[in-house]
């Protein structure tokens, strides 16, 4: 379980996160939603320790992660998998080497064990016969799959996904969403996803938090989001004319 308590982060005079408190449970896909520039990515990067918060606490189970020294943070990070917005696959490595990368650093497994684990992870994300390809030879959807395979390589307890659907067509987006959701349930992972894709929200959102101008202004489930009368949330969710008409029809 991850618990965030009164988190603040600013860059110069720009207060990006203001008093964020939230809890993420295992086996759930928790979504952070909000418009571009609302602070979602900064929140996610603060959670994994890529940004140091100015104030507040980030608890990983019974440990305050952001107060730990580097060496102890490293131990927690071994239990974290992350899927980046652009996949962030290593250009210098093949698909197989990308997935194997964290194993080389953090395990003493034999080559055979690593090979088996790589095969398992790639099969789990439905990627076969691509082991020897380099990232620039893969489609966007395949890159995301490799990113997920790399993120689950060490059996993480926590999975973070930054805009997993960006740049993908609607069909591939849903496949990636379903894959993340399946993995979350299957391995009882605490999954936190950043998104502004409403399809994702309705497809896999077990728990939602709406960030507006750096503040968490709404929290609830995907059913609550349709009936909420929160002004900013409604402006975000029902931004298009079609969505507004759907909302009108729902009133009847």
């Amino acid at each position, binding site marked *: 379980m991850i618990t965030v308590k009164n988190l603040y982060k600013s860059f110069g005079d720009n207060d990006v996160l203001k008093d964020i408190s939230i809890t993420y449970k295992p086996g759930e896909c928790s979504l952070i939603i909000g418009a571009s520039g609302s602070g979602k990515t900064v929140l996610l*990067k603060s959670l994994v320790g890529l940004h140091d918060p100015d104030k507040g606490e980030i608890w990983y189970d019974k440990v305050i992660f952001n107060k730990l020294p580097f060496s102890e943070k490293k131990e927690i*990070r071994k239990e974290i998998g992350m899927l980046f917005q*652009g996949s*962030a*696959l*290593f*250009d210098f490595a093949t698909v197989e080497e990308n997935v194997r990368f*964290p194993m080389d650093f*953090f395990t003493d497994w034999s080559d055979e064990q690593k090979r088996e684990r790589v095969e398992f992870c790639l099969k789990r994300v439905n990627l076969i016969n691509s082991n020897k390809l380099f990232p620039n030879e893969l489609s966007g959807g395949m890159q995301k799959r490799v990113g997920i395979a790399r993120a689950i390589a060490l059996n993480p307890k926590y999975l973070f996904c930054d805009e997993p659907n960006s740049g993908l067509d609607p069909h591939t987006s849903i496949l990636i969403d379903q894959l993340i959701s399946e993995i979350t349930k299957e391995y009882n992972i605490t999954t936190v996803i950043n998104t502004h894709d409403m399809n994702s929200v309705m497809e896999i959102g077990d728990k939602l938090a709406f960030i507006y101008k750096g503040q968490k202004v709404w929290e609830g489930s995907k059913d609550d989001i349709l009936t909420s009368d929160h002004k900013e949330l409604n402006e975000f969710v029902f931004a298009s004319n079609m969505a507004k008409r759907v909302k009108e029809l729902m009133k009847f």
Partner: protein
Amino acid sequence: MKNTLELFGRYILLMKVVFTKPDKKQIFWRQFIIDVEKLVLESIPIVAVISMFIGAVIVLQTAYNLESPFIPKMYVGYMARESLVLEFCSTMIALILAGKVGSNISSEIGSMRITEQIDAMEMMGINSANFLILPKIAAATVFNPLLMLLSFILGLLGGAIIIMMTGVINISQFVDGIQFSFKQYYVFYSMIKMAAFSFVITSVASFYGYYASGGSLGVGRSSTKAIVVSSVMILVVNLVITKLMLN
């Protein structure tokens, strides 16, 4: 001035992170071998071509300027050797490598920074600076002095070839000149310079790449800065080492 000091401070802090014990020795050595190939072996062709042509030009220029019958012709070989070993094979080759290797390193690391590959490593708990930069510094600092030796030999060979082609002096006079009053210490001095220059090139280029920002334009800017700053630093280090070692 404040910016320069701030930049220097960041450079020192980065080097402090770079020079830590690698997470896994096996991975370090694997990267080291890859970087020896990429930074040193792949530089051999350009170093060879430039060294042979410059060696030939130095011999021709020296021969045309030593027309006095009172100066023995073997001095052409002697002066070519001294020019090559003292300055050309270390400083000039280092300036060329600052362009070739420096831009390669800063653009590679810079691209990794803007595509979040470095963030991905950090997030996994890997010391990305150590993993990416230390093998490059080690590979270039250890093996580029051998590149300097190769450049020296090929420079002299270029001189010998042009003499045989043009007959500007007798080849035996050239060989006598090369052997005349030879000081091994100069070779050592030049190798030390090359090692120091290699450190400057790789560490400065890595620094600018590691802190690249602003998309592909930012990577281009960091690459240019890396070349300019490392070239100036090479000239400063050259002056300091010369003062210390040849005083």
